């Protein structure tokens, strides 16, 4: 990781962990499984990001590979509650969704264990089949989120028209869909980044910048979802008195 890119990664880790803790508190308060699953995903992702950056911050090169592997294991573990969240919230009762979640989980496990058994602890070897299994395992859930949340957004816009759903709630689905799409784009951006690393032994500035930009866009979506500014809320909800007349 070049220049000060680690600062953005630490910022991401803090935001993910904060959002995760908030969701876990909600889950404990109301004994709600969906919040618990999503909260677990965010907390584990935050810890994973921190693990990747710790050797960079402390400037201890010998820690890089062990902590990168730990970060990878924690990140992949976080994808499991995330898959269950998608299955539970968007496709409750759909058998195919259960199979999709299981397949994605198996791809993650196979890629992680196979890659580690072959000596690729950092998970950056593009010429390894295990890398691609794991890459598919952690990219697929975000593509699923983008598709499911966008479909739900379109349905929610119809519900808004008959007063069943608030405009802000319909907008939330769109924000989640964008978050999913940006995460897919970040996964795709890893490919040239790792290819560059294989050739030159360092991550190039442009690939760092691209990934950082996508990460910031993701954080922006989470900020709008979990820390919605009043101005944004008013913009989406419109004039409440006009809406009451319409209904």
């Amino acid at each position, binding site marked *: 990781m070049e220049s000060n890119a680690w600062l953005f990664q630490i910022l991401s880790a803090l935001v993910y962990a904060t959002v995760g803790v*908030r*969701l876990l508190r*909600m889950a404990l308060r*109301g004994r*709600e499984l*969906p*919040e618990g699953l999503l909260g677990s995903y965010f907390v584990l992702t935050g810890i994973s990001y921190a693990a990747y950056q710790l050797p960079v911050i402390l400037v201890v090169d010998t820690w890089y590979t062990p902590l990168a592997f730990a970060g990878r294991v924690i990140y992949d573990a976080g994808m499991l509650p995330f898959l269950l969240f998608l299955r539970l*919230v*968007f496709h*409750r*009762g759909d058998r195919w969704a259960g199979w999709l979640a299981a397949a994605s989980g198996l791809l993650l496990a196979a890629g992680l264990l196979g890659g580690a058994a072959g000596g690729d602890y950092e998970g950056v070897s593009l010429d390894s089949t295990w890398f691609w299994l794991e890459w598919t395992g952690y990219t697929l859930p975000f593509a699923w989120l983008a598709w499911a949340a966008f479909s*739900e957004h*379109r*349905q*929610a*816009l*119809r*519900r808004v*028209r*008959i*007063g*069943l*759903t*608030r405009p*802000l*709630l319909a907008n*939330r*689905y769109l924000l989640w869909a964008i978050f999913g799409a940006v995460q897919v784009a970040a996964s795709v951006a890893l490919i040239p980044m790792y290819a560059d690393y294989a050739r030159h032994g360092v991550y190039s500035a442009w690939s760092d910048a691209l990934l950082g930009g996508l990460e910031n866009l993701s954080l922006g979506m989470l900020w709008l*979802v*979990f820390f919605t500014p009043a101005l944004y809320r008013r913009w989406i909800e419109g004039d409440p008195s006009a809406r009451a007349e319409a209904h």
Partner: protein
Amino acid sequence: MADLFDVAAGALERRTGLGSLEARGTLRIALKAGGVAARGLSEPQLRAVLEKLMPHELEVRGLRDAEAICAAVIEDAQSEWADVASRRASDPDEIFRRMLDD
């Protein structure tokens, strides 16, 4: 086990004289227009669709007093779906609304 969709479709069939297939199809069309899934249909969703979208669907099919028919269907469905209040909505809206209100 019958769900609220089955109960409402049965009530619609009785109140309109439409065939079973046509009543279910008409209800599905109205639900789709309202962005609501037939599976896991909740009472507030059914009420909103019957009040705001179904009258038009029934008029298109040549039925008179569409609004009165819809009101009767709501009443029938509610009385047959006695435990509706105890059923907790588990659709995505309910889950994301909780996060919104936190």
